[in-house]
């Protein structure tokens, strides 16, 4: 139920890995992993992992907030919330009646919005009445679902579901939880039903919940505010400039009909990969899973063309003057995840950021002692389309964002001018191999990694193959990519400046901290 919005404090999971001695592991996964593309276009990946009588799944839908229609940002994420609202048989006492009542809400809402958004001659009394009509229609429809609200989630939790959640980001939407193994068939039913007969019930109340989510993640959080302004500035043309959570006016406008339309267009079987990992035999599990998911009717794959971001040829900067402590962030455009240099960027991120041997830690935290934390990472704000390689630093009290910029740029210059050392290159490759190994030890982690690789590359084996590519990264590659990417004109800068505490005399607590 969360929109996966980048948080600076969270080091993003590194999917990139290396695999020198991992041939036997890929071999082991070849034996345990089965892929089946159903006639309706849906892909099923199942992987046997007989450690405990449980399983985890990950449903990957190849549609994210990049697919939000103009004027309806936040819709992909909104639908994700609606996928917990039940079906025509789950969460209703009389669907035939409810269906009619839900349609009436949409008519009333459309009338209300038409009056509300009139550029001239809006009739306030009429608007008030239309709003009342809309709310009355909602109350009438609610009678069909009460007291079965949250029935879908209740079934999952009551049956022992663990970690039920979902996420939406700019690139995709994902749904996941774990169940005891004796609920495999029940899961296959529930998860396929959810995308076979979704019902947009309690849509406008859930929209308020999402608006609260926006207030929490973005409006009331300085780092959230910075990220929204920063990505909006970095992408002029491509939809990556949008917030996944949606702009507030869009959230206050789009309808249940819009969400249903989004579902119909993008939640088509050929856009979905369902991955299941756990304690089963593939020969027994696959027919059960197929039986339920094959019911979803085939529909045409949607057009996913987007505007290409043109080359950036001028530095851009956003400065937020806040009551909170300073922060420095900068990003450089880079190609999408299919770029032959993808693993070079991953190697640079690792070199600059992993642990206390990383260059940024050593320069800014250990030696200059100007930052509490600093790192570089790739994948902002997504990775399916050309995106940003970013650097950030949190200045310690008494130090300013400009010092962060200078120190980060000095480290970037080193990357451009000097080869990294043999030890550093070896460290990157060894760490990649170890990270891969450690990622294979949980059902949830495996379902996510196998599913994402299957969706992105049409082959889960890329999880292992990307390792071979990182092993081929050379010192010259790192210099070449650094010189090509980290140029001033290709840079967007985001800064939080401390602008003093709130105005005195209103009883608020001023910020301290020797500022």
């Amino acid at each position, binding site marked *: 139920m969360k929109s996966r919005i980048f948080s600076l404090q969270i080091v993003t999971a590194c999917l990139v890995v290396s695999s020198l001695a991992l041939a036997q592991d890929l071999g082991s996964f070849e034996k345990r992993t089965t892929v089946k593309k159903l006639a309706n276009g849906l892909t099923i990946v199942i992987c046997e992992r007989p450690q*405990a009588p449980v399983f985890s799944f990950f449903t990957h839908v190849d549609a994210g907030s990049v697919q939000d229609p103009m004027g309806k940002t936040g819709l992909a994420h909104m639908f994700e919330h609606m996928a917990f609202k039940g079906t025509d048989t789950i969460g209703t006492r009389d669907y035939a009646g409810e269906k009619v009542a839900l349609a009436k809400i949409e008519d009333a809402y459309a009338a209300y919005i038409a009056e509300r958004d009139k550029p001239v001659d809006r009739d306030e009394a009429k608007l008030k009445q239309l709003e009342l009509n809309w709310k009355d229609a909602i109350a009438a429809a609610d009678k069909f679902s009460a007291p079965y609200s949250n029935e879908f989630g209740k079934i999952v939790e009551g049956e022992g579901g663990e970690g039920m959640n979902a996420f939406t980001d700019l690139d995709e939407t994902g749904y996941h939880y774990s169940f005891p193994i004796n609920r495999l068939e029940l899961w296959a039913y529930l998860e396929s039903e959810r995308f076979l007969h979704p019902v947009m019930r309690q849509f406008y109340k859930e929209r308020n919940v999402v608006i609260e989510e926006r207030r*929490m993640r973005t409006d009331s959080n300085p780092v959230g505010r910075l990220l929204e302004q920063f990505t909006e500035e970095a992408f002029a043309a491509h939809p990556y400039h949008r917030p996944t959570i949606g702009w507030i006016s869009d959230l206050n406008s789009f309808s249940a009909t819009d969400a249903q339309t989004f579902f119909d267009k993008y939640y088509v079987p050929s856009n979905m990969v369902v991955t299941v990992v756990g304690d089963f035999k593939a020969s027994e599990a696959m027919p059960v899973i197929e039986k339920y998911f094959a019911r979803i009717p085939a529909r045409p794959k949607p057009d996913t063309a987007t505007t290409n971001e043109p080359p950036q040829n001028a530095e851009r900067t956003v400065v937020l003057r806040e009551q909170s402590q300073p922060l420095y962030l900068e990003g450089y455009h880079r190609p999408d995840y299919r770029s032959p240099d993808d693993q070079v960027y991953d190697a640079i991120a690792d070199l600059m950021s992993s642990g206390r041997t990383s260059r940024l830690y050593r320069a800014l935290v250990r030696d200059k002692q100007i930052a509490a934390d600093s790192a570089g990472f790739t994948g902002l704000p997504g990775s399916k389309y050309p995106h940003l390689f970013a650097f950030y630093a949190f200045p310690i009290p008494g130090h300013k964002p400009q010092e962060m910029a200078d120190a980060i740029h000095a480290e970037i210059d080193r990357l451009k001018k000097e080869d990294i050392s043999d030890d550093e290159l070896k460290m990157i490759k060894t760490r990649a191999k170890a990270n891969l190994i450690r990622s294979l030890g949980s059902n949830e982690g495996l379902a996510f990694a196998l599913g994402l690789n299957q969706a992105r590359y049409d082959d889960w084996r890329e999880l292992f193959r990307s390792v071979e590519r990182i092993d081929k990264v050379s010192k010259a590659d790192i210099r070449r990519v650094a010189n090509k990417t980290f140029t001033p004109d290709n840079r967007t800068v985001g800064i939080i400046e401390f602008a003093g505490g709130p105005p005195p005399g209103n009883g608020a607590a001023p910020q301290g901290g020797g500022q």
Partner: protein
Amino acid sequence: MKRSQRFSLAFVLLAAIAFLNCNESLWAQTQTWQQIPVPKLPAFHPKQPKRIELPNGMVIFLQEDHELPTIDGTARIRGGARSVPANKSGLTDIYGEVWRTGGTKTQTGDQLDDYLEQRAAKVETGGGGDSTTASWSCLKEDFDDVFRVFLDVLKNPEFRADKIDIAQKGMYDGISRRNDDPGQIAGREAAKLVYGANNPYARVDEYATVAAVTRQDLIDWHGRYVHPNNIILGVVGDFDSAKMEARLRETFGSWPKGPAAKDPDIKPEPAKPGYYQVEKTDVNQSNIQMVSVGITRKNPDYFALSVFNEAFGGGFSSRLFGDIRTTKGLAYGVGGGVGSGWDHPGMLRIMMSTKSQSTIESIQALDEEIADLAKRPIDDKEIKLAKDSILNSFVFRFDSPAKVLQEKMAYEFYGYPSDFLENFQREIEKVTKEDVARVAAKYVHRDQMAVLVVGNVAEFDKPVSTLGPVNKLDITIPAPPKGLLPEQGDHP
């Protein structure tokens, strides 16, 4: 002719498939989730770690797990932040960092970093409320190299001054940022209202208390607590237990006992019930927390309260989620329950965040939920759902060898019977509607709660004072001692 025959054959086949599909979906329409068979879960007896107690009192758990070629270990050492005097608050955080970054007698922390990272291995240390930890994590092939470093860190730390300086600066940074996020403010101030502002379970580090910590304090702390009789070591991974046991016996067997760590006796000193307000002008959402003192897990009511918590405020199925979020649309985050600590009372906490304009409405909605517990007690259906939810997901408490190890280490640390988990399952099964009503009445008292609101006061639907007298909390960060931090703009 031939062509057309082929076409019609294809047509017939297609029609047949379409018919089958149609049949399938007709059949599906009439199916409900209750009709799906749920076979009995196969018996599952997770592997238990081997417990070894050395003559010097050190307790070791060995848990083999051969799935991946790794070996990880954690030593948990008694004694933590709650034993630190108030004027040195922050000591165990600095200790937990510099224990490792400060290196050993023969190796600097930087040298250890290089050595370990070449092997993609970790040796790390950390400070906590009731204990500190030293741990390692490595590929099996590097175990000898990495374990040697672990032992060196465990026994011969040097706490070099330059790393103390870095650790302190990092903590000054954390202090300076602590009022930036409203959720963080709410969590911190709520704990103070339950335990008391100067209580070790709630107090916050200040510039002066962090600056007061010296290298000698870290050395003294290490000398006081790091003795085998204060340590529980857990090892999990791809090794042979017999060989590992022999090796650990040889390594630690001759380590002499030291004085046993004593836990301080700390009593909560809750604030007076009533309304507490923190004004934050750069937000459009209020964080609301209603809090009072909770229970320890040793309390026999723990099991009934676990069912109550699940039904009242835990997850999708709970009353709070259903009423406050789904039905009223007032919050994204809402939940709560009677919290429990292993060896000290946890917090009873009911919390939500809502737009500034529905702050008072939301407090009243939560009030109604609490009042409803008496008027509309948690019913049979809710009890069944809560118990099903706990019991059917029970397997996830021990679905990996590492989780089993962690549970056993916790029982050992806090002196719980090693079958606590099995017992928990039996006790949950026994909980009745009457039990839940009884514990709700016993522990959930609205008139004993402190109600904290962090938000943009000017935008509230009504002043909090319409509900009762308001205590305004001053969260101003005390200024650092003069000369501790560079003045802004005074940097080189």
